[in-house]
């Protein structure tokens, strides 16, 4: 997969030549985006697209801006970006649009006027509601829960929290969120945080980990505290990192979409936009093996969040 990191540049963007599409993760070295990239690689191969994959090594809106600017001068044909921060990146994306580069976003959106489409794996609302529904189901709308997040400043997590709270207030008023702790996107820190959350809140029923390293971290903490079953763990994460805990019954469910499909769909959509096959106003889009995908407004909908549990987790290998 390194070849596409450093693939030979294709000069010129005229039709007929190989199309170059640049794909930006929020940060590199994150298993989630690596998995997206695997899907993207597959699509790129099928479509004969030259894929550039690059992003900041740590989530940093300023660095994202810088890389977009670089791509503009590099003269790519299309950009697909997962935005760390709505406002921060939109300026750069608008500039790209003005230069005739087709821009779409995936995973986390920019401002609507800065891109053509957003490949929406699941709306923040969908994620927030699903998480809370799952929590409510596991706890029977009863008791305390805590959230472990990546950092207090991560934009999409802030958004999810908003919907989690909204759903709680609406449907699960008997549940109480007792704490929100950041884990700096580190599994080890999540483990420590979960440990002290449990001892500080003896009535804790459930830990909701909303960044991917936090789910196995929290699960390990619960396991070590000997509170399996007593404190439930749910979260957003990759099946591969959580398989062990889900099968052991420590983690009850992991919520995610099929990340490879997200990457795949993103590249498919980007290519279609670049080729002019996908235009604003379209209501559906043929994504090859993924079938026909619904488009709502300017959101290309991948589908609902997927709930991985004991029964189905073995079917997924990402």
């Amino acid at each position: 997969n390194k070849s596409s990191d450093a693939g030979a540049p294709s000069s010129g963007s005229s039709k007929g030549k190989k199309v170059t599409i640049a794909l930006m993760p929020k940060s590199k070295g994150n298993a989630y985006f690596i998995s997206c990239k695997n899907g993207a690689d597959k699509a790129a191969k099928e479509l004969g697209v030259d894929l550039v994959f690059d992003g900041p090594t740590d989530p940093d809106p300023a660095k994202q801006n810088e890389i977009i600017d670089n791509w503009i001068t590099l003269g790519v044909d299309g950009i697909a970006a997962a935005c760390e921060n709505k406002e921060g990146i939109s300026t750069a994306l608008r500039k790209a649009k003005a230069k005739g580069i087709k821009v779409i976003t995936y995973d986390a959106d920019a401002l609507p006027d800065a891109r053509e489409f957003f490949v929406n794996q699941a709306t923040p609302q969908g994620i927030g509601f699903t998480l809370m529904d799952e929590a409510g189901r596991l706890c029977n709308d009863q008791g305390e829960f805590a959230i472990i997040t990546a950092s207090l400043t991560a934009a999409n997590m802030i958004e999810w929290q908003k919907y989690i709270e909204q759903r709680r207030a609406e449907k699960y008023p008997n549940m109480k969120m007792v704490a929100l702790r950041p884990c700096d996107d580190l599994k080890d820190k999540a483990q420590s945080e979960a440990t002290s959350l449990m001892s500080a809140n003896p009535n804790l029923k459930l830990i909701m980990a909303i960044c991917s390293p936090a789910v196995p971290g929290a699960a390990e903490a619960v396991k070590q505290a000997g509170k399996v079953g007593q404190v439930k763990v749910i979260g957003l994460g990759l099946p591969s990192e959580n398989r062990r805990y889900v099968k052991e019954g420590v983690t009850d469910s992991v919520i995610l979409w099929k990340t490879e499909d997200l990457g795949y769909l993103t590249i498919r959509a980007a290519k279609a936009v670049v080729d002019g096959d996908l235009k604003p106003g379209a209501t559906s889009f043929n994504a090859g093996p993924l079938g026909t995908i619904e488009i709502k407004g300017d959101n290309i909908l991948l589908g609902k969040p997927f709930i991985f549990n004991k029964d189905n987790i073995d079917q997924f290998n990402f």
Partner: protein
Amino acid sequence: MKYFREISVALALLALLIALAIVAPAFYQPQPLLSLATREAPTLIVACGMALVIICRQIDISVASQFAICSVCAGLLASMKLPLVIVLPASICIGAILGSINGVLIAGLGLPSIVVTLATMVTWREALRWQRQGEFVNLPDNVQWFGLSQSAGQWTVIAIAITLLLVLAVCMNRMAAGRFVYAVGSDAEAARLAGIPPQRVTFLTFAFMGALVGLAAMMNVVQSPQVDPKSGTGIELKTIAAVVVGGVAISGGRGNLWGAFAGILLLACISPALTHLHIESYWEKAIQGMIILLAVVADGIRTKRGSA
């Protein structure tokens, strides 16, 4: 008072613990405390090394990158089904090699440690990211807790860290090698003239620091069935802060491991204490900063009063 700093940190810790006992007695439960101690044991090991390095009038900010590399390498070796008796020394060796690279650049070429380790920190970190792309390493079952039961494993980790602390603390005071570190940190040229080779001492200090990081990484790896390639992030600032709060002078030659130990305990307790006191987590960094500043300011005011 010779041990003012150590005592004042210990008192601050005591104050925190008493406050917790009154406001949040739930803090004192054996299992979570054991967990906390186990989680902080690797940090303590690194802090011991950091204390040595700072006493030697150097600094090492590359420990987090070394920690991550050792963790991942140990994880990969373990997942190749190698037994722990090989993996553990291997991890220590890898750490020692990384430390030696710092040592060669710093002691051999006489380059400033803060810059050298800044450079190696960036280089190792990015190289590891490039190679691993953030992927977790899954370990075979017999690695966690050395294949022992959980509580036996936890006690082993704690025992190793505490033993190391005790042995090192005694060595630093009672063994010539330890005094050499103080001597070199106090005045390298005077050491040279006294027949102590400052370059060798500095080199060995860094190599030893690396070995300790390797050991610490291993102590962390055995605590869970997966290795996060970002393990150890931030450990350099935490240990430097702890060591300095504990009274080791950044200008070298002064301080001891007991202070560093007290410093680590204090910093390690902050985060769980906030959770127990139900203080919102967005205050955490600010409080940490305040504690570092208060510790050094208290000391500063004391020395100022003493000299004015």
